């Protein structure tokens, strides 16, 4: 298989994986929530 074909296969696989996982993303979910998720996770521990 050519390098170009390999890349197309890899791209298609990744795109499909993201589309599957993102199917039910809510409108309110945005990238900055990642840092909030970490901070919230740490806070839960502190309160435990």
């Amino acid at each position, binding site marked *: 298989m050519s390098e170009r074909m390999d890349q197309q296969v890899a791209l298609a696989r990744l795109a499909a994986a993201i589309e599957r996982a993102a199917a039910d993303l809510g409108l309110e979910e945005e990238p900055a*929530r990642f840092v909030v998720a970490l901070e919230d996770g740490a806070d839960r521990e502190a309160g435990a």
Partner: protein
Amino acid sequence: MTDWTIDGLAAAIRERKASTVEVTTECLERIGRLDRRLRAFITVDAEGALASARALDADAAAGRWRGALHGVPLAYKDLCHIRGLPTSCGTKTAEYFTAEHDATAVSRLRAAGAITLGKLNMTELALGPFGDNAHHGHADNPWRAGHLTGGSSSGSGVAVAAALALGALGTDTGGSIRLPAACCGIVGLKPTYGRVSRAGVMPLSWSNDHVGPMARTVRDAARLLQVIAGRDPRDGTSSHRAVPDYAARIDEGVSGLRVAVPENYFFHGLDDEMTAGVRAAIRLLETLGARVMELCVPDPEVMSDVCNVIARCESAAVHTRLVRERPEEIQPVVRARLELGFRIPAHDYLQALRLRARLARAFIRDVFAETDVLVAPVVPEPAPPRAHATEGDTSEIAARQGRFSRLTRPFNGLGLPALAVPCGYSRQGLPLAFQIVGRPFDEATVLRAGHAYEQSAGWHRRRPALD
């Protein structure tokens, strides 16, 4: 030299039982004698290191102590900007990366009294898990010649394992601290995302990059983390969260600690010796009083794909000029990984960033509601022969790379602290390792568990036969 730890040397210098010049000279002598084979260093700054050592000895004689690392010789992955030394980032270009200020992590270590021995070998642009580098010579595994070191912080793993330096900095975007630590039989810590400043360090993927310590013992890694952790105004992603005293509870053991072992994903397709080594480590933790339980974790494969999409897009953005203007200078496998990033739609990149937040929240909730740490293997097998990284076509090598980093990459996407600790040796004499993963910003518990295991197992006392 091979018996010093950072903790022990710092104490010996303070008690005037060792001199900084003597120890630095011995490191430089070892580098001169062993590095022709090991290829840990890209740049050795013998003159600068000795000048610093003399100044530090003069300070010590006058009773002036710079800090917790007074007189400790360290070395840094060659993507940390340090004024006066070139930063190749493992590329063919000697001065590929510059920054306005020295890397904050390096500045903090120097301010604490560390000596800079030089800059360490790495996978080109930190893009690859094996540690091979055709431009600067392939780093060689100190435990078995002709075997891979793990990467991308290959030189950091080798330099510490071979006692060319007492500790090092690495960076970890998909496993690049933990993989070489595991392959070289040392300790490597990827801290929580935001715990250590990345200012002055070549970015590969802003969303996944972590700077962290590599050392011979967990206590040494804790000591380095203590110095480099904390808010840095030069890195907007660095956390304002207070830095705890990592040494304060490191000796408290694991009695009652809830340790989760993942039932899914992490033990699939593993080499038999690696499985046995990691399972034995888990049993020892249980013997030491930990409460071990099996747990099905949220599918790490999804986080791995998310992490991959983000890393490919961001690395393509960072290195656009190199790829567009001088593609012939980049090793074929590295170039192929970069080029992939140009072809991922912006929509997929943004969806991956959104997904990451949700997946992190779900993982933290599902795993750490019931447990304190998660333990898992770092690599699927002991360090493979070099041909694993250099023979075959680009797609074959890329597939091997994907398999080799499949156990570390999810924790970059998740941003959680993850500590690689040695847990034995294969019949071929190659290191085995496991990783301890904790809640966000809970490096203290991860280090405490790692230290308890290490002190009981004793693998950290073994040295490669190099002398």
